[in-house]
């Protein structure tokens, strides 16, 4: 059964790695729904957050292929129950509409939107939340002359994760502990990742 999975990849900061990771998906004609790169909690380590809609088996194989890249330290995948995630959205609305129509203001408030910039000609609002919520706000704003809309990639925190600091220290050793290079994959053929 296909569902949304979030793949979290810890990597070295290396030019060219984005292409290597992207082609793992494009080569298999798998659409990336969202992709974010950012620093991670561990210094010098980058964190990719990738969202795709696929079956668990496909996601597991993709995670293996990603982890096979030399500069990738670890790849984890989780379904939506296992993570906390957010996306940021920005909406540009004509100021006149807001001033005239009380309803618009109420709608924005109801959807938890916050004004970031207020000008004579337009106002920019932001919301933070899940995709369905931002999508809904776009729908309701559409009749009132939504000028521009943009939504960020997903960022996600794995509920059960203890972070990467300790693992990183281990990775730096020539002979890491068993726990680190343990055969997680074989251990838990279904649930590959143990963090």
């Amino acid at each position: 059964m296909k569902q949304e999975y979030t793949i979290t990849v810890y990597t070295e900061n290396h030019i060219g790695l984005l292409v290597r990771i992207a082609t793992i998906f494009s080569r298999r004609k798998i659409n990336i729904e969202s992709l974010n790169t950012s620093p991670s909690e561990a210094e010098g380590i980058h964190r990719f957050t990738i969202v795709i809609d696929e079956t668990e088996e496909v996601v597991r194989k993709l995670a293996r292929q990603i982890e096979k890249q030399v500069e990738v330290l670890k790849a984890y995948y989780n379904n939506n129950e296992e993570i906390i995630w957010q996306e940021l959205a920005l909406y540009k609305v004509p100021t006149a509409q807001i001033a005239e129509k009380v309803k618009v203001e109420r709608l924005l408030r109801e959807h938890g939107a916050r004004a970031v910039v207020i000008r004579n000609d337009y106002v920019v609002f932001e919301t933070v939340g899940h995709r369905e919520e931002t999508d809904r706000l776009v729908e309701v704003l559409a009749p009132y002359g939504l000028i521009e809309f943009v939504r960020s990639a997903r960022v996600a925190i794995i509920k059960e994760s203890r972070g990467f600091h300790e693992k990183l220290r281990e990775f730096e050793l020539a002979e890491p502990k068993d726990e680190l290079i343990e055969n997680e994959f074989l251990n838990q053929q279904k649930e590959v990742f143990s963090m």
Partner: protein
Amino acid sequence: MAIETATQVSSPLAQADTASISGSKALLEALVAEGVETIFGYPGGAIMPIYDALYDYPDQLKHILVRHEQGGIHAAQGFARSSGKVGVVFATSGPGATNLVTGLADAMIDSTPLVAITGQVYAHLLGTDAFQETDVINITSPVTKWNYQITDATEIPSVLAKAFYIARSGRPGPVLIDITKNAQLQLFAYAGYQKCNHIRSYRPKPIIRKEYIEEAANLINAAEKPFVIFGQGVILGKAEKEFANFIEKGGLPAAWTILGLSALPTDHSLNMGMLGMHGNYGPNVLTNDCDVLIAVGMRFDDRVTGRLDKYAKQAKVIHLDIDPSEIDKNVKATVGVWGDCKETLPLLTQLIESKSRTAWIQRFKDHDAEENKEVIFSELHPDTPVMTMGEVIRNLNEISGGDAIIVTDVGQHQMVTCRYARFNQSNSNITSGGLGTMGFALPAAIGAKFGAPERTVVAVIGDGGVQMTLQELGTILQTEVNVKILILNNHFLGMVRQWQQLFHDKRYSFVDIASPDYVKLAEAYGIAGASIESRDQLNEALSAMYHHPGSYLLEVNVGKENNVFPMVPQGCSVSEIRLK
């Protein structure tokens, strides 16, 4: 860059502390420190500083000037496969680099350790569409294990150290290093070369988990009909001895993928032959009859498995591989043993019971007898007026005694040669397995000879494939390398013709290929040669080729419309293999 621990390598330059040298010289020092002696390559504008530096290394580094960069990289592949070392190839930017792509893809899918060095335009010109600028890093990303662009000479020693480490460790593969011209020219304070043996984000080898070995051993010990299938992992892991001990103790019949060929001597009593589309009858049929299937260093390619949903469904599967992404990729393993088979096989051997399993092995022999009757005998001892490819290889076996390195191209002759050639030792079968690259054999044979100069190298090539990289005859001319070129000329792109005959109503669409006069052609390149058409010339002609003091080209005209059987038609299961 990742943190690396390092071992100091002593070199004259390393001792004179922080001498100022060019990036080019640092590159060559790196090669020398890595034990490289042979480089295949072709110069050009963007790599000229490296070639200039090479001029001063005539004793340490032998550079083989090829005739096309594709030839250069296939030669490096042949070198790597006959020697078990990392192959090295140089090419210039732009077209030089793009000419490497086929070889990189081939090396990637066949896990061949290579370091390819490409020149690149000056760093300040990157992205300006400069003359002979191509985005080599992005073009080659999907076909390299790792690649990296150097724009500053100070990076050269550490990046080269990483390149060699990555190419040869874990599951080997090609690495490409693109060096901008300014970095090649740049002088910098050189502090010596340090080999790399650790990159924090890279785990070439896991710690072996004993419980999986135990589980695997239990399955094998409880099995009535265990069957071992093995691939190139045995050769890449240099685990031939460990492998033989394993199957001998367990009395385990074993069959090979074409990349595993030669890891186990042809004569070995447990060698049951070849797997897959044109493999032997017993190994294919009994894959769907065994109760435990033990896969060692192989990746369940579709040419081996046929239809996956009808592949070994009755069997418990044990899969030993160094690449964890291979386990469960195509065939779900009951027990996956992740690790280097050089280490995992002895552990497994310790735990398995000593058995002989004569009745089970007899089943392979029975199938063999049937295949012999239906296919093999008439292929090797035909009563037709025209020669078969099989009888050529049978005669070659008699002359080589199984001691030659056999390099094959792609097509019918490849399948026939892999089926019938005899091998006494490992690293002796060199073929383009995963990519099926026509034109591979001639340059790969040249490289193989440089990698194993003491051995006789025979390239078996079709009339189609030989015309793809013919220009490498010039490399033979110039280097006087001794390779035997055996063209099996069926006057067709035979393998495609066979499919057109069997699956497209004999509509022979553009498979009728003309050939030049190969003997004259060889002669033009100063290579001795002969062409034969009749059986009574065969043995003598092969013997003349084999024992000729230098390179030799022999064209054998064989039957035009012979087919390779048995065959597992595409989309069929391995047990639906056809004998005719």
